[in-house]
Structures are given as C-alpha cells and as structure tokens.
C-alpha cells in the first residue's frame, strides 16, 4: 500500500528492559495521535498515513533479531525503529543492513554500534564522549578543589562505555582517577566496591548502570558514609523511578543526559514546533515529565517523516539518502547525521536533583539553577 508509511518497532515490553520499552511505545502513541490529527503527512502533494507495527521481544536478543526479520519480510515495514540499548540495537542493525531497510536508533549512544560501516543505520543520540568532556570541565570550574574521581560502572554496553569515556576524559582533564572498576550484570550488592571507593577518598563519585543498580548504589554510598561533594549517576536522575526509589538521598545527585525538557527549541520541524509544546502534550497525557528516551524517540519519528518528505516517496534507497543528508532542528534539538550515521555532537545538558525537582546546570543557555555541592 503506497499511501501508508509503516514503521516497525521491536520493543522490550516485558523482561529486563520493559520500562524503557513502554516509554518508547507511549511516546510514539502520542506522536501518532498528533500526526493523525493532522490527517497524516504530506508527501509529494499527497496525504500519507503512518502506522506503527510493534512486537515485544521480551528483552531477548535472539528474539529481537527474529522479530526485526518478521517486520521486514512479513509486515513489509518501510523503516525500523530500534529498541532501547546499544546491544539490541546492534543485533537489529545487522538485520536491517542485510535487507537494506533504513533504521533509526533512538536510544543507542555507544560508538561501537556505529563503527561497523553500516549504511542504513542512523542514531539520534550524540556520542558519549562529548558528554563526559564537558562534564569534567564544568565540575572543575564549579569546584576548584576537585582532584580525585572514582568511576564505577556496570559491565554492559552503554553503562560501560560511559564509565570508560568518563575515566578517559577525567584523566585528560587532569583529574586523578583513584578508582575505576566495573561490576557484573546482576550484582546485588555494592558494599565491597563502595568500601574500596571510600578508602580511595575521592571528591567525586561517578557511577553508571540501570536504575535498580543506581538506586542501590546511591543508598549504599550514603550508608557506608561516602560523603563526596559530587555524586553523578548515569542515567539515574533522568528517570522518575530513580528519584522515587532513592527518596531524599536523590538530592544533589548530578547526571548528564542527551536532552532535558527545559531546553527551549523553537521553530522546529516535526510534530511539535517547540520543546514547550511537546512538554505540554506529554505531561497532559502521561502525568509525568518526559525524559531523553521519550524525546529522542519522538524526534527520530520526526526525522523519518522529514526524510520521506524530502525523498518524496517511501522508497527505501531514497529515504536512506535523505536521512544521510538530514540537517534539521527538531523540538529535541538539532539533528545532523555524521559519516557513521550518528547525530553530531553538541552541548548536552548536565542536570541535578534539587529538592523534588530536576534542574539544568549546563549549558548556560538553558541552565535554570546553580550547582549545589552535597554536604
């Protein structure tokens, strides 16, 4: 059917990544309502309808690949949206590449996903390294005493790459990395590592992992009397579950994120023309703040629509070329895919929990609070 743009999305709706999968599902639903309200999208002077086909792959990699194939061959989708996480994105990218179907990775930021020379893979998140470098510089500026940092990350594609990137940035930024370890997936206790961190006596603790790891980590840091002025958890505070699970101890925890709703882009291409519009619609629908996963996924859909419009058809090759040439501004920020298909680096927000709220500290253009040190 030529008048319907079919988007396929294998999602983790159950299993380990179920919460993330649901977020993707939710935001696309919102996005689709918006598009449908406008009667579809305009392509080459005609209205084209948009449809999502979603399957649950139960956080099982083998299944993810299988469903990608089903989407492509059985449901004949025009484009694939990748699920949460770099690992599963890789699996699906291999299938999409083989079938030469354009694929948008909206929640995969590890460079290792993009360095395989794939032609049909495009990612809306920017490289991790950009985030860590600016963070080191910003913290050094805010806290001249800052000398020693402890890095503690989960041994999983994304958290590991963030931890590695930060350790590198910290070293080249002149900080002393006094502790740098990974913990295995499924670790239920961090007291041993935190004891070791404590005896290394850092000024800054940087921990990465899934929400449940970070809740536990934050609590154990406090329990074991690690009182560094800066505690950063990635992606912790970006999620509501984190702040709820940690309670008062969340106060003062910093994080970096690819997007925050206090950014204020206007005149954007896509379903929402300003960040504020998106924020308003999202909070009205879901009674909670959107995080970077929601925004990036919605933006990916916008980029896709834009590419189809530029190409003037849903021909896969044409859409792919249009995607490669993309350089637009969305409510989520500018999107301009580099040679490897990844969104070009830009300034990414550093956020902090202050009281009940999430405040933006950096970049100055959107900052709405001063950084507080944890006492």
């Amino acid at each position, binding site marked *: 059917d030529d008048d319907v743009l079919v988007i396929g999305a294998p999602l983790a709706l*159950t*299993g*380990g990544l*179920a*919460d993330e999968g*649901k977020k993707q599902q939710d935001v696309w639903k919102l996005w689709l309502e918006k598009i449908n309200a406008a009667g579809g999208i305009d392509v080459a002077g005609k209205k084209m309808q948009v449809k999502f086909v979603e399957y649950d792959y139960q956080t099982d990699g083998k299944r993810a690949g299988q469903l990608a194939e089903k989407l492509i061959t059985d449901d004949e989708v025009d484009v694939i949206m990748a699920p949460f996480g770099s690992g599963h994105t890789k699996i699906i990218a291999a299938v999409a590449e083989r079938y030469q179907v354009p694929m948008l990775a909206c929640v995969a930021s590890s460079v290792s996903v993009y360095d395989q020379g794939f032609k049909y893979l495009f990612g809306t998140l920017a490289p991790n390294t950009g985030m860590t470098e600016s963070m080191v510089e910003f913290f050094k500026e805010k806290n001249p005493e800052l000398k020693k940092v402890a890095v*503690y990350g989960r*041994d999983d594609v994304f958290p590991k790459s963030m931890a590695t990137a930060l350790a590198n940035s910290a070293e080249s930024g002149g900080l002393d990395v006094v502790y740098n*370890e*990974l*913990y*295995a997936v*499924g*670790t*239920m*206790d*961090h*007291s*041993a*590592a935190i*004891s*070791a961190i404590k*005896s290394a006596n850092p000024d800054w603790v940087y921990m990465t992992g899934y*929400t*449940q790891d970070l*809740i*536990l980590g934050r*609590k*154990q840091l*406090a*329990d*074991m*009397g690690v009182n560094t002025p800066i505690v950063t958890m990635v992606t912790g505070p970006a999620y509501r*579950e984190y702040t709820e*699970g*940690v*309670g*008062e*101890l969340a106060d003062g925890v910093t994080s970096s994120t690819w997007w925050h709703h206090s950014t204020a882009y206007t005149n954007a291409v896509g379903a929402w023309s300003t960040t504020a519009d998106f924020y308003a619609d999202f909070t009205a629908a879901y009674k909670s703040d959107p995080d970077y996963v929601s925004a990036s996924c919605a933006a990916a859909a916008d980029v896709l629509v834009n590419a189809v419009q530029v190409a003037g058809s849903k021909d896969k090759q044409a859409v792919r070329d249009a995607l490669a040439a993309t350089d637009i501004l969305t409510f989520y920020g500018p999107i301009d895919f580099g040679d490897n298909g990844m969104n070009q680096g830009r300034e990414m927000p550093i956020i902090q929990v202050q009281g009940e709220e999430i405040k933006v500290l950096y970049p100055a253009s959107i900052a709405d609070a001063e950084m507080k040190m944890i006492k």
Partner: protein
Amino acid sequence: MDIIQILLNGIVLGSLYACIAIGFSLVWGVLNIINMLHGSFIILGGYLAFFAWQYSGVNPVFLLPIIATALFGLGYLLQYFFINKVVSSPVLTTLTLTFGLDMILYNLMTVFFTATPRRVTLDLGTVNLGDMYLPVDRLMGMGLALFLTALLFVVMRASKIGRAIVAVRMDRQAATLMGIRVNNVYAITFGIGAFMAGAAGVIFSMVFPITTNLTGTFLGKAFIICVIGGLGSVPGALIGGIALGLIESFAGYTIGPQNATTVGFVLMLFLLIVRPTGLVGVKGYE
C-alpha cells in the same frame, strides 16, 4: 580498619543471602525438587511488602508475618494440587514443572507489577562504630534473617513436623508406617520454603530495589549457597550464605567487583567436586 568493615559487610550481606537460600535448600533437600519458583516467590513477597507499605504506611517488618503466611498458603496449595502429583518423578520432571509454573507466576507479576524497581524507602540511617558504618535497615534485615533461621532450625529439630519432614525425605513409605501423612508433609515443607522466600522478599524490599528481573539472580544465589552449605540443611544454608557474603565482600574489595561473582561460582564448583555434601554434610534433623 578496612578489613573489619569488609568483614562486617560480608556477614550482614551473608545473612541476607542465607535468607534467600534456606527455603530453597529445604525444598530441594526434602522433596528432591529444584524449585524454579523460588526466585519469583521472593520477588512476590517483596512486591507485596512494597504495595502494602505504600498503601498502609505500616513498617514492612510488621507486615512480614502476614505476607510470609500468605506465601506459605500459596506454596502449600501449589504443592498439594500440582507438584505432589509428580513428586517422585526424576529431577528433570519436577524441575520442568516448577519452571512452567514459574513462567505463569512471572508473567502475572510483570503484568500486575511491571518491571519497575520498587523500594521501601524507610532510610533508617546508619550506626557508626568508630570508622565502621552499619546501615540500620541491613542490620534489621540481618536480625530478622537470623531470627527466622533460628526459628526454622528449632522447628526442624525439635518439633514433630520437623522430624516428620526428615523421615519423609528419607523413605516415603516407611514414614507412612510411622503414622506420617506424606502428602501433607510435602505440602507443608513446600509451604515453609515459600514462607521463607516471602519473608526474604519482605526483608529485601527494605534493603534492595525489587524488580521482576531479579528472579533469576536470586535463584542463582540460592543455588550457590546450597552447594556451599549442603542441601536441606538449615545451618548449612546459613553458613553457605555467610560464606558467600564474605567471599563476595573480600573478593569485591581486593580483585574488583566484576570478578567477585566469578569467584563465588568457582568456589562452588570446586566444593561440589571435592565435597558434594557441602561444608555441612546433610545429616539428621537439619
């Protein structure tokens, strides 16, 4: 001073681990069933504690008896109506059956509770002893875990039902001749296993974030602890749990957290081969 802190960490963590393993070990040792449901029982206990706490505001410690008893009931019924029918089949059959039941329970839990991590945020602070820090909630968890272990130990050793459980484990028909109702004893044993799992879940909800994704992790820990301590033995599970806690604590500190879990597994394999009955051999009433 670090060394004492690590030692204490290990012991506290180990007691919590023991709590995970006791019910599992009992069911395995007595009924000869590898209960794949055990991890889900723990999580179920944890979620029930969380929601009951959120709803009522009552400290989960006081909810523990109710929740654990509810799990006892669930375990009793599952055993009585399902597992008892195949209880004397080979390991693989009972394992597959509990695996199937677990898939159902797990699915129900993900639908009703979602995978969102939940934690009872009491945040009771810490006790300081000089340089040492001991979180109050963990200490409380340890206290409860030890209390329950002791209670179960006494039940197994001194009570009639305890003796009946051991007899049934050894020879079903001979136990019948002693006047013991075997199906009932099986169901009670499985119920006790579920009770301990539920109690562990409640304790954990105050200390760890609970999510359905952890069922496998809990099950894995229970396995290791059983092997270290010996099957079907209450003191064995306690010793196994504390041993694992100490190993992870020391290994995590010295060779890094990433390898700490591996060390636990290597130790377990080693023990399995040199001493399959565990540190505390299976004997008598334990």
